[in-house]
């Protein structure tokens, strides 16, 4: 005759209340926009490729500027350099001072002068200097009976970028992804943990908990709350991650996505279990308070744990990183980072998952016990220790 299991009703209500809450909707939309924005913003703010106009007074000058144009566009393909013929040095100076030209090349072989107002643009100056030097070098070499190639033979250095073979991500990228993983977990755990605690204390404070406790077992109430909020937390994070991944494919950042997909594949179970491990403790923290104002005090231990986890997750390296990546909750932040960095045996994340699963069993048992004992205790907030010693009502 019961239409639905009580915990499903409770979870459904938790989700519906949040999904119809304007603050929640607005903050989620803003976060997604922010993620998109932070990915696209760099392309909007990158200045246009520079183009340079150089006033010249002779054919030799024009030839040098053409040579320099090749050098400049080798550094930045969209940049253009053009020579503008003027009558004489006075006209060239006037063009620079009036702003018609960025610089002027006057004189001739052996006495070239680059005129500018307040210094010529760096790339242009370098290109002109190099062009003049190369042509002088070629002439001098010819005069000495040799060639530029002979003179410069064996002076090149080959460049190999290991990141380009697709198996190892650049260190900056792994750090950025690890940071994003850590922050996402940290925020989701705090925001939705607080949400669980809040929703528990709201029921306590409005006394509706007495009606609920008379109708359904408190464990069903707890189960519904925890699962409802886990779904919300995971859903919101999935939405933001999807936005980030879509954003990444739009911009020209060819991150090694295959490796990232693997890392995300591991991150998901660590995220869910890490969140669940704390969820019942958050519920207990809510039950210990009797008014919203007490939450600050009763949730303090949880927030401390998360801050420490975040700090350790971001700063630990080497041996200690390896050790701590097995510690439940901390493993959610550390193990995915180690997985992205590579060099992790398959048993390591599996063992870490096993450990956090075991830890979940412990915290759910303890959290549920505290929750049940403290839930109907309405006179003032309770300490964690005192709540443990309460008799079961």
């Amino acid at each position, binding site marked *: *005759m019961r239409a639905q299991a009580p915990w499903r*009703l409770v979870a459904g209500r938790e989700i519906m209340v949040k999904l119809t809450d304007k603050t929640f909707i607005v903050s989620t939309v803003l976060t997604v926009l922010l993620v998109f924005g932070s990915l696209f913003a760099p392309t909007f703010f990158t200045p246009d490729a520079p183009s340079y106009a150089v006033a010249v007074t002779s054919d030799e000058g024009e030839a040098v500027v053409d040579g320099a144009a090749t050098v400049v566009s080798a550094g930045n393909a969209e940049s253009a350099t053009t020579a503008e013929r003027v009558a004489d040095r006075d006209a060239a100076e006037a063009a620079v001072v009036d702003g018609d030209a960025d610089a002027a090349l006057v004189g001739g072989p052996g006495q070239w002068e680059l005129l500018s107002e307040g210094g010529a643009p760096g790339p242009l100056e370098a290109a002109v200097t190099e062009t003049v030097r190369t042509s002088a070098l070629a002439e001098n070499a010819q005069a000495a009976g040799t060639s530029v190639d002979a003179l410069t033979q064996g002076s090149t250095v080959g460049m190999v970028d290991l990141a380009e073979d697709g198996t190892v991500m650049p260190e900056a990228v792994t750090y950025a992804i690890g940071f994003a993983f850590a922050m996402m977990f940290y925020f989701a755990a705090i925001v939705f943990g607080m949400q669980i605690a809040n929703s528990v204390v709201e029921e306590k404070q409005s006394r509706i908990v*007495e*009606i*609920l406790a*008379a109708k*359904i*077992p408190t464990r069903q109430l707890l189960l519904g709350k925890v699962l409802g909020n886990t779904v919300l937390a995971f859903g919101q994070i999935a939405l933001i991650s999807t936005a980030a991944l879509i954003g990444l494919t739009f911009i020209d950042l060819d991150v090694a996505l295959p490796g990232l997909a693997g890392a995300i594949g591991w991150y998901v179970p660590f995220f869910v279990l890490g969140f669940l491990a704390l969820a019942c403790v958050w519920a207990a923290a809510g039950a210990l308070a009797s008014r919203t104002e007490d939450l600050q005090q009763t949730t303090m231990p949880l927030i401390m744990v998360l801050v420490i986890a975040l700090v350790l997750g971001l700063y630990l390296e080497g041996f200690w990183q390896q050790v701590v990546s097995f510690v439940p909750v901390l493993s959610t932040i550390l193990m995915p980072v180690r997985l992205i960095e590579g060099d992790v045996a398959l048993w390591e994340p599996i063992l870490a998952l096993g450990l956090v699963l075991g830890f979940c069993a412990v915290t759910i048992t303890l959290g549920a016990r505290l929750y049940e004992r403290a839930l*109907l205790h309405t006179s003032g907030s309770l300490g964690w220790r005192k709540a443990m010693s309460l008799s079961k*009502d």
Partner: protein
Amino acid sequence: MLEVTGLSRAYGDRLAVDDVGFTVPDGRMVGFVGGNGAGKTTTMRMIMGVLAPSAGEVLWDGAPVAREDRVRFGYMPEERGLYPKQPVLGQLTYLGQLHGMTQAAARDRSTDLLTRFGLGERLTSKVETLSLGNQQRAQIIASVLGDPKMLVLDEPFSGLDPAAVDQMSELLREHTSAGAPVLFSSHQLDLVDRLCDSIVVLHGGRVVAQGTSEQLRDSAPLRYRLTTGEDTGWVRGAPGIEVIDLDGPSVLVQPQDEAAAERLLADAVARGRVREFSLVRPSLSEIYREVAAA
């Protein structure tokens, strides 16, 4: 039928409820009366299972009450409980579903009741925006959803105007007519006197009196009022007579027995004019004060 036997609850060394026993028969409305701290709320919470008794039992139809029974009990706790920031219809539907109703049935029934009690236009209003009287109505509606087998209501009428009290007591009467036992507590003794079939008086955690209001009145000590033409100070010396209150020509007495009362009347007539000699029926509140002071 709900039966409570030997129910006790201790908070530390203090016994909040001490060996309480009474019954709420099917189709009857029982008033639960007592001062602040008498143990009414604690007893009701134990009946609903939100508080574990230190000793004693709650029986439903002769067997220890089970969770399956309690799910079908309608309960209104002393401290009102609804989600303040949620629409009233939405949460009544939710509570009805927790009661085992389907969503559609819960919504229909809630809408009907809200409309009946004048809240038809406020279905989607948040509870916190309703007046206290309307919140109270919504609270009573919450307790009667899902065709309850029994109602346990802690101070259901506090804060309601007389018209609302009539509306609500009519709603409760519908449930007793259908055979459900109803137990409600109240400080408003005249209301209890008017509505209830029987009364349980609690004081200091113990049941000090119970029965119908007739039975309670009959069990009260015999009292007479005597008013004469002159001062009645002489009554103080009359044999077998205890003076309760004396004010010049008028005196309230408690005779040992009928014979003592008749002797007093004869003496008074012998002394002069008797304006009044009447049996005083105590009001429920006087009985209550009496047993509470004992």
